[in-house]
C-alpha cells in the first residue's frame, strides 16, 4: 500500500468495497451539510457523497481492531490545565477588532435582521 502503484491498487480495492456497500446516502449528506452550514449544488452533492463513501469505507478498517478495553486518547499534552487569575489583560480596542469586519456600524458588527 506504499508506492504509487500499490496506493492505486488499494484505492481500486476500496472503490470496489464502496460500490458494494453504501456508507452514506444523499439524504445524510444533505443533513450533514446543513449541520456544517455548507451549501452544495445537486451535482456537487453526488460527487461529495461518493468521496465520503470512499473515505468511510476506508476508515472501516479500524473495526478490524478490538478496542473494547482501550481508553480513548483525547489529548497527548501534559496532564493538567494551568490556572490563572481572572484579570483583564487586553485593553478594549474596538477599531482594531472591527477593522476586519465585513460590515460595521459605529462600534458594532452589522448583520442581516434576525428577528422579524
Amino acid at each position, binding site marked *: 500500500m506504499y*508506492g504509487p502503484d*500499490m496506493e492505486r491498487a488499494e484505492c481500486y480495492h476500496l472503490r470496489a468495497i464502496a460500490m458494494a456497500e453504501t456508507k452514506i446516502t444523499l439524504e445524510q449528506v444533505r443533513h450533514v451539510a446543513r449541520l456544517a452550514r455548507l*451549501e452544495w449544488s445537486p451535482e456537487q452533492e453526488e460527487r461529495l457523497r461518493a468521496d465520503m463513501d470512499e473515505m468511510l469505507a*476506508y*476508515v472501516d478498517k*479500524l473495526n478490524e481492531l478490538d*478496542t473494547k478495553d*482501550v481508553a480513548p486518547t483525547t489529548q497527548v499534552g*501534559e496532564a493538567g490545565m494551568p490556572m490563572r487569575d481572572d484579570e483583564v489583560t487586553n485593553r478594549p480596542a474596538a477599531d482594531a477588532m472591527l477593522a476586519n469586519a465585513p460590515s460595521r456600524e459605529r462600534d458594532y458588527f452589522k448583520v442581516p435582521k434576525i428577528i422579524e
Partner: protein
Amino acid sequence: MASELNKLTIAEASSKLRAREITAMQLTRDCLDRIAAAEPRLHAFITVCEKQAFEQARAADARLAAGNAPAMCGIPLGIKDIYATKGIRTTCASRILGTFVPPFDATVIERLRADGAIFVGKTNMDEFAMGSSTENSAFGPTMNPHDTARVAGGSSGGSAAAVAAHECLGALGTDTGGSIREPASFCGVVGIKPTYSRVSRYGVVAYASSLDQVGPFARSVRDAAIIIRTIAGKDVRDSTCSARPVPDYERALTGDVKGLRIGVPREYFVEGMQPEVEQSIRSALKSYESLGASTVEISLPHTGYAIAAYYLVATAEASANLARYDGIRFGLRVNAEDNIALYETTRAQGFGAEVKRRIMLGTFALSAGYYDAYYLKAQKVRTLIRNDFERAFEKCDLIVTPVAPTTAFKIGEKMNDPLTMYLSDIFTISVNLAGLPGMSIPCGHDSNNLPIGMQLIAPPFAEETILRAGDAFERTGAFKPRTAAGTL
C-alpha cells in the same frame, strides 16, 4: 555578480552579522532579490513584505551595532501564512481570509520579533493546512525548486521551497500530519515537528488542535536548533503549551552518537516503496553504525491504521475549529436573504473543495448516532498507536524511517484522488497521533535528482536526541544535499 548572502546558513550569517562583516540590510536585500528572481517559477510566497522587512533590517542593524544581539537578530525568515502577523495580511491560503489583516502577532512571531528576526514574507500552503502538496492553495500551487513540474509537498510547501531555493535562511511551518516533514523531504531541507505542546500555538490558525504543532525549516540541523530555541517554551496564552524549561539545543550537537540505539520499524519498509528511498535510508543507517550507534529492528504494529484514525480525529477537530468562519466578524461575507443562508453561501464560496470535504467528514463523524462508531473508535486506535511507540522506545532511543514512500510527485498527479493523496502521509501521521518530536533531514537523491528525506523520531521532549543524531549525520558528509538554487 550579487553577493549572494542569502546562501549562508543561519549560524554563518549570525556570526558574520555580529562580527559586523555583513549587515542585516545587505542580507535582506539579497533575499528579496532572490525572491524577485525566483518567484515567477516557484510561487513560494503569498505575500512578500519588502517594506516591513527593510524596516526590521534597519532596526536589527542598530541593535547589532550596539552589541549583544541574540542569534536570530538580522536573520531573514519566511513565515507560513497560517501565523497571525500584526499588520500583515494572513490568508491561510483561503478565499475566506483573503483580506484578513490580524491586529495581533502569534506568540512565536512576537518572540522572533523580540529577537530581531526579519520577515521577508508569508509563504504559500494548502488551504487551512489541509493537504500534502500545496496544490490546495486558493492562490495556486508552489513548485518544487528541484523540478518545477513537481509539487513542493505540503501543507507547508511554500516554506520548504523558499528555504531550498535560498529565498530566506529559515522558515516557520506547521505540522498536523506531516506538513513540515513531507515538504522538507520533497525539497531537500531540514524540517522539525517538535513534541506536541513544546511550542505555543497562540495566533496559529487552528486545523486539528490535538495534533497541530509549530516548527522550523532550515538548511542545517544547527539552524533548526537555533530557531526552536527561540520559539519554544511556556506561553500563558496557550493552555496546552508545556512549562518545561527549554534546553540550549545547540549544546546537544556534539557529533557523538556512540551507543545510541536506533530502532528501525519493519512496518515502514515494505514492498511498493520507491526502491531508492529504502536504499538511501539503509545507507544512512550504515553511516550511523560506523559512528558507533547500533540498530535494532522494532515493530509498530498499528502503523497501517494511522491514516484512518487520523482522518477521523483531524477532520472532526477541523469541523469544530472552522465553524468560526461564518462571515460575521472577519473574513469573506457573501450576503444572502437570512443569516443561515449567509453562513451557507459564505462558507460554500469561501472554502476550497478539500476543506469542505474534510468539514463534511468531520461533522459526520461527530454527528448523533455516528460519534461512537467513528470519532470515539479513532481515539481508541490513537491510544494503540501511542502504545506502539511507548513499547518501541523501551528498546531504542531513536526511530529512523523514511519520511515519505516516494520523492516529490508531479503537480496534478493526485489532485482528483483524495485518498491517494492522503496515503503520501503514511509515515508521518503516527508521530502526530502520538505527539512525538520528528525531524526530516536530507539523506539522498533518486535517479531524477529529487531529494529523499530521512525521518528521525524520539520520545516526548527528546528533541535533543534527534538534533544530535541529525547533526552527526550531516557531519559525516556521507550525503551533501544538492542545492536547488542553481536550477532556477
